[in-house]
Every structure is written in C-alpha cells, then in structure tokens.
C-alpha cells in the first residue's frame, strides 16, 4: 500500500455537456481516499495533458459521451508520452461500445467502464493497478 494518495485527473474532453457521470466518479474516488483533480467540461486533449503534467497525476480518467473516444484516447496518450508521462494510467468511461472498449484495452489503455458500471469497480480497478505496479517495483 502506498503511503500517499493516488492522484487522479478527471476530465471531460469534447463538446458534450454531460458531466454528471464524471462528478459521480470523482466523488467516489475521493471517498476511496484518492486525490481527484477535477477540471470540468469541454477539455481539449492538449489541455488535459497539460493539466496532468502540472498536477503530476498517476491516473487520467476521461468521461466521453460524444463518440470520439477512438480518436481522443490515442491522442491524449500521445500527448502524455510527449510530456514524459507515458506511465500514467489512462482510464475512461461513458458511452463506449464494447468492441471499441476491447480494441482500446488491446492497445494498452486502462479499463473502460460503460453504462451500468459500479463506482466500486472503478476504484477497485485503480487501486489494484497501483498495488500491482508497486509489487512490480
């Protein structure tokens, strides 16, 4: 178990205005002892990557309901890597078809949580991921 809280950036890229889910997830992660930097709506990939850099987060969580996920995830990862932050765990949720989720996970992204996911699952997944990373050293 790490001695300091996991830091998570929760961001909503794109133009849709549905931030309820992002807020629910942010609150749930907070209640699991994580430090959640919430950035609000309408973020561009560049803004998200820059905020992640300034905040030195361990996780970036994206809430996407616009259908642009197949573009946004790789783009944000590319920008994170350009900032020397390739290690950041990139997770997401929203309206993402199962086959797209599977495709993104196959590309090495973190887990994607579709409609009906429980907030517990998300927090558990992030915690387990960092426990695994810590064990790996």
């Amino acid at each position, binding site marked *: 178990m790490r001695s300091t809280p996991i830091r998570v950036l929760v961001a909503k890229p794109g133009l849709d205005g549905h931030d309820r889910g992002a807020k629910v997830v942010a609150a749930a992660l*907070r209640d699991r002892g*994580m430090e959640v930097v919430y950035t609000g709506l309408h973020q561009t990939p560049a803004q998200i990557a820059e905020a992640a850099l300034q905040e030195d987060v361990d996780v970036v969580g994206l809430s996407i309901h616009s259908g642009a996920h197949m573009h946004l995830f790789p783009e944000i990862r590319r920008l994170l890597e350009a900032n020397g932050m390739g290690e950041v765990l990139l997770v997401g949720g929203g309206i993402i078809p199962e086959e797209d989720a599977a495709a993104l996970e196959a590309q090495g992204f973190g887990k994607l949580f579709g409609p009906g996911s429980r907030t517990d699952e998300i927090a558990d997944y992030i915690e387990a991921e960092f426990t695994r990373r810590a064990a790996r050293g």
Partner: protein
Amino acid sequence: MISAFRAGDRRALSRLLSFAERREAQFPSIYDELAGARGQARRIGITGPPGAGKSTLVNALITALRKASERVAVLAVDPSSPFTGGALLGDRVRMQDHVLDTGVFVRSMATRGSMGGLCAASLEAADLLDAFGFPHVLVETVGVGQIEHDVVEATDLVVVVLSPMAGDGIQALKAGLMELADIFVINKADLPGASRVAVDLRDMLALRPFRHGEDIPIVACTATTGEGVDDVVAAVGACFERLRSEGRLAERRHARHLAQVRRLVEAALRQRIFGQDGDFAAELDEADLQRPYAAHAALLARIDAFAAVRARGKLSESLAEARPEHGSPAEGSEEHR
C-alpha cells in the same frame, strides 16, 4: 532533475512539487540546493471563507497579470477528508482559461491533515515555484473560518476575499481573518449588499486598529466579469511597494525563513522523542500518569541531559564541519503545520 528544473523544464518542477508533498528522502538536499534562487517572486496569499470567490479571483488576477505579460504560478489548496484521506481538488475548474498558456502554472494540493488552511508542503512548494522563476506566486487557501492563518507565514502579503450575502459575515471575521489581511477584496460587488460589507468593514477597522492603525485597503470587484480586478492588482502592487520601502518585506521573509527552520527542528525533535527510537511509553507506569506534570518534568530532565551543551556560535561553522543527515528533518513533519 535539478538541472532540468534550472533549465525551465515544467515536468521537473511538477515532479519536485510531488517530492515536497510526499517528503521524499532526497527532497531536502534538492530543496536546499534550489532554495537559494527563491526570494524573487511576489508571493500573494488569497484566503477567505468558502464560496467567496477565491479561485475565480485568482483566475481574474492571472488574466490581469498576463495582460501585462507577467508570468504567474498558482498553488491552490483544497481540503482532504479527515475520514478517508481523499480530496476533490476543484480549483482548476475556475482557471481553465489559462491551461495552455506556458506563462501560467497551476498546482492543486490537498491539506493532508494540516489544519491551518494550507498543506504541510505549501511553503516549500511556493519556494519551488518562486525559484523556478515565476515573478508572481499566488497561494490560495482552502475556504477558511476564523483560525486558519498558515498563509501569513507562507506568503509576503495576504488578500482576504469576502462577499456579500454571506449572512452577518462581519461578525465571524472579528477575531481571525481581520488581523491577517493586508488587503480586503469584496468580491461579487455586483450583488446587493456589497457596499454594506465595505461600510461595515471600514467601521470595524476604525474601531479596532490592528497593526498600529495602518490603513488597510478595501477593494471591490466582480471577479467573474473582471470588473475592478485591475484595482486589486494595483492595491497589491502598492502594498508591495509600501512593505518594501518600510523594510517590512524583508522582515517578513526573514521571519518566514526562521520559522521554516524552527518547524523542521521541531518536527525532527518530535520524531526523535516520540518516534520509534525514543518512545517513552515504556518508561511511564500508571502512577506516573496520575502525576502528568511531575512525569513531564522528569522526562524533560532526561532529555536535557542528553542534549547537554553543544558547540554554540554561527551554524555556518558547524555546517562546514559536519553535513547534517538530510533525511531526518522531513520525517514526521507532516502533522506539524
């Protein structure tokens, strides 16, 4: 990482801020090496009750300073949960206009148990932002009540942000915030009641002349529209000039640096005495606990015996002889702010 920091690498700055926050073992020596470059920035504390508009004012101040091509760093602190340790750091939401501006750097931190309105690492974090070369460092506290005054020690100058319609807010201000403000900003000046707050505030200041009756400016603004924000910037600038010309800026910084060393020593002593090396629980029996003052005197006598007179004189001499172990001062200091 030090050379990357000196070369202006924002990633290095960000990682060092995390080092400060996590009290990494290598942080003290890195910090000491970089701290020499601090002292160039105007360090401005922004405090006030929850919802007064601190973050929005910070955003408006960034806009105003950027218009003048001044680079700005922000350290924004939000509370950690005392129950889970988690935190929702939401100050960035109000500062999104400036994310892609390389002249601006915003870092959010959680209090992690500190009760003074900031976090344990806030002073070191502000020092790093200063040493990185930002000429303005804004330090935004959590929404405060009456007693959180760490911001005074961490900054050169304190702006207290108030807003109208906060009930009889002036009553709540009497003891705490009233005394630490160098400037009062009445935000949301477009709302009814703003002029009333200003009048009440002036009355209060006239009745209770803290700080030798010095004239504390009261500035009204509407941070959401930017109305009056230039006046805030001007008041801050004038206050800096006054503090500088009266020699009080240097005094404040000196006091800050002294307090920093004192705090490190206190934390290390605490660790040494109460930490695993020297926990005295085993030495106290039930009878001793019924006479706490006698027990404490006896324990202190033992500690004094151990501490018996070391070499005195300027520290720089003993620093030259023996480098102190860098790891220890940071440990256990978290609880101590």
